[in-house]
């Protein structure tokens, strides 16, 4: 507003008008829950967590400064740590690509404008709203080697099913299958993306005689690449925090085959009360996620197509 007649020269800093001061006060006031929340529930814990990671803090006794000992022990003297890291990397490497392919496949099927689209959409989405504890118990029963649903179905087609969660070789694949059952949320996000792809392009491609496969590779996937990138990063963040299902179903067994990173971290902190050690684990996790996210962004920059740019 240019109503002020006072020369702005008097102060070096541009002064706020009455309206601006008023807005600033209101803005801060309305945003105060987020500001306080950020300071108390995010900023302080992050800083405290760095500090704890350099101490031997446990609930039972006040810790003392141990420098890099926790990190040294983790990286050089804790074989279980590497096992859990491997398990988590396995879950990420297997689950994420399969989830993306399955969710995209379902979304593309639904996008064919067949009748009953919303009915099918509902069915594919249903598993994602089932509480994790309930679905964990259900799948524990489905994976029961003797009487479970999965081995029964395999038996019908003449296959002797494995021991699933009781067998170290099959426990992670079992968890992957269970994760795939829950891709419905991503399917809906992809479906929204697919509906934004300009129809004229498909029509033009069809006139040129393009087959389904060509349209998918040259139109759908480039247009969907921002969605795929977004889901990739969120899935990555999610899988590193994967906890409830293995905790309820296997408690990390058999022979540590499902002891994922977050499960080990929880055990360290709340069963063995090694809070300092667990904080160091949390920080390595955070760094790993940040580095991987940056890597994904950098390597995908040329491959992701943003419409309108």
């Amino acid at each position, binding site marked *: 507003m240019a109503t002020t007649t006072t020369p702005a020269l008097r102060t070096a800093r541009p002064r706020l008008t009455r309206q601006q001061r008023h807005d600033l006060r*209101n*803005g801060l006031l309305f945003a105060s829950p987020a500001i306080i929340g950020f300071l108390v529930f995010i900023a302080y814990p992050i800083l405290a967590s760095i500090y704890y990671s350099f101490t031997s803090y446990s609930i039972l006794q006040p810790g003392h400064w141990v420098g890099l000992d926790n990190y040294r022990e983790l990286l050089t003297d804790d074989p279980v740590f590497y096992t859990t890291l491997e398990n988590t990397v396995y879950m990420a490497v297997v689950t994420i690509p399969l989830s993306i392919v399955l969710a995209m496949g379902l979304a593309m099927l639904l996008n064919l404008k067949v009748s009953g689209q919303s009915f099918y959409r509902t069915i594919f989405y249903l598993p994602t709203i089932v*509480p994790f504890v309930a679905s964990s118990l259900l799948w524990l029963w489905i994976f029961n080697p003797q009487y479970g649903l999965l081995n029964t179905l395999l038996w019908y087609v003449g296959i002797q099913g494995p021991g699933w969660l009781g067998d170290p070789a099959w426990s992670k694949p079992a968890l992957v299958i269970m994760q795939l059952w829950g891709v419905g949320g991503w399917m809906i996000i992809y479906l929204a993306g697919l509906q934004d792809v300009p129809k004229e392009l498909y029509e033009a491609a069809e006139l040129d005689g393009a087959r389904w496969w060509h349209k998918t590779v040259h139109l759908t996937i480039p247009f969907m690449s921002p969605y795929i990138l977004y889901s990739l990063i969120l899935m990555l963040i999610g899988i590193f925090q994967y906890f409830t299902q293995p905790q309820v179903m296997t408690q990390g067994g058999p022979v540590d085959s499902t002891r994922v990173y977050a499960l080990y971290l929880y055990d360290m902190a709340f069963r063995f009360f090694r809070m300092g050690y667990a904080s160091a684990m949390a920080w390595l996790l955070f760094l790993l996620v940040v580095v991987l996210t940056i890597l994904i962004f950098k390597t995908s920059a040329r491959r992701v197509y943003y419409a309108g740019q």
Partner: protein
Amino acid sequence: MAQISNAQSASADRLASRRSADNRKIIETIASHAALVVLSLVFLVPFLWLVSTSLKPDTQILVFPPVWIPQPATIQHYIVGLNYIPFLTYLKNTLIYCGLSVLGCVISSSLVAYSLARIRWMGRGLLFAVIIATLMVPAQVTLIPLFLVFKNLGWIGSLKPLIVPYFFLQPFSIFLLRQFFMTIPIELSEAARIDGANEFQIYRMVVMPLATPVLATVGLFTFLNTWNDYLGPLIYLNDPSLYTLSLGLAQFQGEHSVLWGPLMAVSTVMIVPVLIAFFFTQRTFVQGITLTGIKG
């Protein structure tokens, strides 16, 4: 002559190609329906297995090959399961957790979103960026210091550590509400301001009433998150009289791992309210997910 026959064959070709295109469309439709039906069955079978097990008499659960349809169907597992655990206590605790969290989230997120979307103040862009960035922070990083803070406050063993954070910073809800608030014409606020309304009155009387559907979405997602939460109750609740359904059910499994009938019955009871809530609010759900990219 040659020209005419050429033209004729060209038109015949076109006709044939159109017919084959039509045929292809029909085949495509049938194939996609077939694929959708099969996939739907795959996604639904676990639910059928759940309900079927929960209704089977004991003698039909651990048998091979399995009985698919309980004969006769019985609700004995529901009675056993719901009596084995203090179900009503767990339900009450869960509802307190869910209800207060929804309330806190709707109030705090709408206030913050209002500030970010409807008030011009320097720093709001920065604050928004910071709020979105917090989504990157794994819960495990803040878990231990927060636990120690709540411990020093003497809140361990109460629902407070679970509920109180919902009254402060909920990034997804803030994001969703902010996007919606930005679409409300600024003239509405200005008209109210000319009539002498202050900022809070504009928020309360103009913006909030228009946002009811989005507030419902935010409330629903919060309800689901808290109804499903397991890690929070596991860490903060040590007194069985305060257990939520998630925690209670998991403990029950830990102690009675072979009681599949009652386990499936209680799981069904835990899933049903969510399914009902979902069926009544499907549109809201789908819009919410599409808008924010949150998946449940």
